[in-house]
């Protein structure tokens, strides 16, 4: 049996738009997940919290355009910290041609503008790498 999913969410860097991340956080909570919402953070802080919280998923949000620099950095630091099994997902205004390089850099999924909340919930529920002992 899978345990309740635990998601650490953060807005990358200086990005100012909280609407998307807050709505996703609420929807995940309503879907029965445990959500730790960090607000604005740099990759180091996000990774530290994700490891401390024993997260299944790190949810990143950015509408500022900083995702190409900061999102891959989160994956890199998780791997370096021995927590490469934590899935990193990204939501926000991501131009279509940047999705492939992000996935190559280890981002598990990218959710662009207009993504139904159901789709994000289903994706997280489908992640099964951490099974309760």
């Amino acid at each position, binding site marked *: 049996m899978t345990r309740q999913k635990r998601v650490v969410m953060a807005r*990358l*860097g*200086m*990005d*100012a*738009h*909280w*609407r998307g991340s*807050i*709505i996703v*956080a*609420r*929807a995940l909570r309503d879907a029965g997940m445990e959500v730790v*919402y960090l*607000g*604005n*953070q*740099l990759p180091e802080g996000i990774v530290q919290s994700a490891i401390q919280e024993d997260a299944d998923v790190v949810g990143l949000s950015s509408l*500022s*355009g*900083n995702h190409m*620099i*900061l999102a891959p950095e989160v994956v890199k630091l998780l791997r370096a910290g021995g927590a490469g099994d934590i899935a990193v997902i990204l939501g926000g*205004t991501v*131009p*279509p*041609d940047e999705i492939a390089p992000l996935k190559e850099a280890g981002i598990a999924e990218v959710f*662009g*503008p*207009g993504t*139904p*909340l*159901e789709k994000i919930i289903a994706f997280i529920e489908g992640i099964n790498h951490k099974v309760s002992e």
Partner: protein
Amino acid sequence: MAKVFRTDSVGKIRQKKAEWQEDCYSKQKELDKEFKTLSGIPVEALYTPEDVAPMDYLRDLGFPGLEPFIRGVYPTMYRGRTWTQRQLAGFGPPEETNKRYKFLLEQGATGINGVFDYPTLRGYDSTDPFARADAGRGGVAIDTIDDMRILFDGIPIDEVSTSLVTCQPICNISIQSMYFGNAQNRSIPIKALAGTSQNDFLLETVVTIAPGVLPPEYSFKLSCDAIEFCTRHAPRWNPVSYAGYNYRESGCTAVQEVAFVMANAIACTEELLRRGLPLESFAARLSFFLSAHSDFFEEIAKYRAARRLWAKIMKNRFGAKNPRDLMFRFHVQTAGVSLTAQQPLNNVSRASYQALSAVLGGAQSVHVDSYDEALCTPTELSSLTALRTQQILQLETNVTHTIDPLGGSYFVESLTNQLESRIEAMIEEIDRLGGLVKAVKQGWIHQEIANTAYEYQKAVEAGRMPIVGVNCYRLENEELPFEIFKNPETLAIQEKKLERIKKERSNQEVERVLGDLGRACDQGDNLMELLVEGVKSCVTEGEISGVLKKHYGVWNPPLF
């Protein structure tokens, strides 16, 4: 007394309408949906004189340029002069944005609307660890007065009016000082400068929060410092633009949007009176910034309701006597949040309808969003298309020929009345919480906005709110029909300039400015009085913010 309709006519109309409802309307099929505005106000099938019968023409509507200003703040409106076409621009280093400003002015834009990047808006230098990945994104990067010189190089700032989109007071106190200081360096007196700064503490503490936010009471104080400074020294400058647009973008309804800007303006007015400024010295310079969202008639009614209500508030709460002090003047931006990344050229249609609602609602200036804004910063082509949308509206549609063309519409007047009373009720609720600054500290505003944002999204998901290309009429395997804007290199350029400036400037002078600033913070002095001169030392924005945070502290906003 000038009742719009005679009581006996209204009785007859009511009776005939009931018959029509019974014999005609209800015999036909109605779509299976709820008919209500985006803010949730129920909409009837038909409005008649009955709905506006209690209105008194001279008291409730009147004439443009006269109380209660609902029909327009100026007597001639667009027959006298068109609205200002103020297209937002800003990206990368100031060298690049300077070119875009010049391009838009050459193409007929009638004012500059300058937006700053994420770090600048939050008081950070481009080179700060938190800022580096965002330098030049979402706006132009400004670190020192030298960047301001480059940004406006070759632009006649004594002739062109400039809107500085300095959302947050912590940004505004530095950036507006740099703009003023730069003008003085060009031998232009600040009393000659025309323009607006945004300077809204709700943006800092609720709407676009970032790491290291000043506590609400200090962010509010900085906002009032700039207003006070301009009142004394820059009479042509609008020192604040209450950014209802941004509140709306983050989730507000039309009612909350207007209620919050007015509660904000009320709080500032109270504070400025407390500081001893006479009402007539600043009231006419308080300006507003609203969204044009997709509910066409509700938006028009919103602008009209805001004008009448503001006149009433200024008169009843503050005893304003000068007609100029009663005027609700506002800039409009079409709703970025309504734009879609799917089939993005459809956004041209959306923004056009929204701009039309702003003009039918009597806006003083308008920005039309570009079609690519759900994906990237606008390109030159998309910015030009947005500007042309305004020009087509102004020159080809003839909507400017008569003032307040929807005044007297049974529906629009009825909706205007309903919005006005809902907005008024919400302002009273904020009064009961002890005013806006306290409502922010308690997290009440945060909750209000997050709740409506979530409801909105659930309505979209449930299909109750159709969005073409997103939850209906989707295209499979869509291909992007245009090039995406790529942000020019910024960080390396800013880093190099900062390094040079820090070598060339007098660090002793900078230390003196920062020391004076710290003392001014502790003494509760007006900081702008000191900074307009102080920024000429090439002190950086980040250095100034550092002192502010040290002396005022930082605040953790409630996490919704």
